[in-house]
């Protein structure tokens, strides 16, 4: 098990190097001279040339990229070309806001999606099932940024109940979290329903029923724990996807998170900042996936047993 975790962590390093290369190459293709973008159109050619040398843009692309990778692995992500502040500090300040928003949205999706999915599966082909699956389909079709604007119109403009921008209090997170969670509710509802329906049809469930076990005990005691195992993986994957999709929601609600930072940095061709955000988000996604796999191995006795058996077998063979 430890061997597997170490192997997975080590794989993250080359993957991050490749991700850095992809984003660095894309940013290189972006039109405009960095020095000219920083100094403005009125700056003299001498000043632009001098800044180009200072930024290292007089060197070949691969040399600059290699330098960046080496610095990044020593914790130096450079300074923002726009603000002059440390990229690491800037991202670190904004990261908790984005994580908080994503966690709220995911919690909402889990609290609504999973129970509705269970209900749809248990009452398959009933009115509950029909309403549940149609609701999921509608949720999956609504653009989150549009829903965000509709919620602002209703709750902030008409009813004046909730704030429409900023992150001062818990109330500020309600509308963005609701808008972000709609697509995730749809995914979790449908997935939980599918796994639960499959589980209910298993032989052990039939045996439990045949033995006279109460229906509630059969559903919640036997089928549900097994059905929820794959749902954990999907929840994690969706959370990772959510981290990448915060850009539009943060823009609508003027939330100063990583999404907004990425958007502004891409517009201004602030290469160090875009790279910093990309590395942070990608590393978070990779680590999250690793955590899910480990948690999954610990929760599922079948996978745990496989690792234990493998370890014992290994020792025996030694």
């Amino acid at each position, binding site marked *: 098990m430890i061997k597997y975790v170490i192997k997975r962590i080590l794989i993250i390093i080359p993957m991050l190097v490749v991700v850095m290369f992809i984003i660095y190459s894309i940013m290189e293709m*972006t039109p405009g001279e960095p020095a000219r973008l920083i100094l403005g159109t009125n700056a003299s050619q001498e000043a632009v040339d001098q800044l180009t040398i200072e930024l290292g843009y007089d060197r070949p692309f691969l040399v600059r990229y290699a330098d960046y990778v080496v610095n990044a692995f020593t914790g130096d992500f450079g300074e923002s070309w726009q603000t002059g502040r440390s990229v690491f500090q800037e991202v670190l300040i904004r990261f908790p806001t984005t994580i908080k928003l994503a966690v709220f949205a995911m919690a909402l999706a889990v609290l609504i999606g999973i129970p509705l999915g269970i209900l749809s599966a248990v009452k398959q082909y009933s009115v509950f099932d029909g309403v549940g699956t149609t609701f999921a389909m509608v949720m999956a*079709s609504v653009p989150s940024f549009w829903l965000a604007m509709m919620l*602002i119109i209703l709750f902030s403009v008409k009813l004046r109940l909730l704030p429409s921008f900023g992150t001062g209090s818990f109330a500020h997170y309600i509308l963005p979290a609701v808008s972000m969670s709609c697509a995730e509710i749809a995914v979790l509802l449908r997935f939980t329903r599918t796994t639960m329906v499959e589980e209910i049809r298993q032989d052990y469930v039939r045996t439990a029923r045949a033995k006279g076990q109460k229906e509630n005990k059969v559903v919640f005691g036997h089928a549900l724990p097994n059905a929820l195992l794959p749902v954990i993986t999907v929840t994690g994957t969706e959370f990772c*996807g959510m981290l990448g*999709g915060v850009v539009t929601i943060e823009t609508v609600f003027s939330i100063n998170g990583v999404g907004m930072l990425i958007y502004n940095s891409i517009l201004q*061709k602030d290469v160090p900042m875009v790279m910093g955000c990309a590395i942070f988000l990608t590393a978070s996604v990779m680590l999250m996936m690793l955590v899910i796999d480990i948690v999954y191995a610990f929760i599922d006795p079948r996978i745990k047993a496989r690792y234990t058996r493998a370890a014992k077998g290994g020792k025996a063979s030694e």
Partner: protein
Amino acid sequence: MSNNREENKMQKEVHIPEMESLDEINLDEIPKMTRGSQLKAVWKRFCRNRLAVVGLVIFSIILLTAIFAGVFVPYEKALEQNIAIRNQTSSAEHWLGTDNYGRDIFFRIIHGARYSLLTGMGAVAVGIICGGILGALAGFRGGLLDTIIMRCTDTLLCIPFMLLVLALVAALGTSLTNVLIALMLAMLPTYARVIRSAVLTVVDADYIEASRSCGAKIWRIIFKHVIPNAVGPIIVQATMTVGTMIIWAAGISFLGMGIQPPTPEWGAMLSEGKNFITTTPHLVLYPGLAIAITAFSLNLMGDGLRDALDPRLKD
């Protein structure tokens, strides 16, 4: 029961030849008959799902509106500005009201369907072709090539989708073609994976082995035998992702990095209207509804197609 009856009927219809008379048989006839009856069976199963049919009808209306937009309303009408009638709500003359420049929102939505559908369907079509080639090669060849392609797709999938798309659009420039390319590139790894797994399900089949032993070239086997037999999951994935692509394309335009105003694209309309949501909410209400209805119809269709193409998947 009905499926068994259909199978029996098909078995009766297919003439099983004697070994001596193999030269006299027109081999093209057999697959044609089978394919035709398979399509009929899929269509029957699709029609049994009422919601899927509703989705198909709605999408067909939207598609026809997009194709014949110019016949209903000249394009110039969607761009025509008239400050005297700006920000008007619904009326007999302007069904969905007018925007901040006095342009008719209904006319703009009709013409916007063209751009949104073109972006969604175009990105999926090109993505499926490119992802299909990569996925089919990986699944069919296996070995080192499979490992390289799959590790590349794994890495690309780790990059947050919106970050990748925005960076690509910023690099390529804001235009319909570039949005399409960016979306296609961002979706490429997903398609490659789906098509690879679909190919893996058929790659060891006897008919592939037979084709190989006859000396057929790799591309012939992939296009003639592998892809047609693994097409089910590909079609389902394509239908489902057109809706998602339309939403993503609108999101890019909404951020001001996609198709630019005054082009009547739905996302661009939302972007223009977002600054007036407190005073004139109808500017964002109708384009958003158009996106949601289109995506909804595509999701319904995708769901129905999935059940129709592989009834085992139906719960």
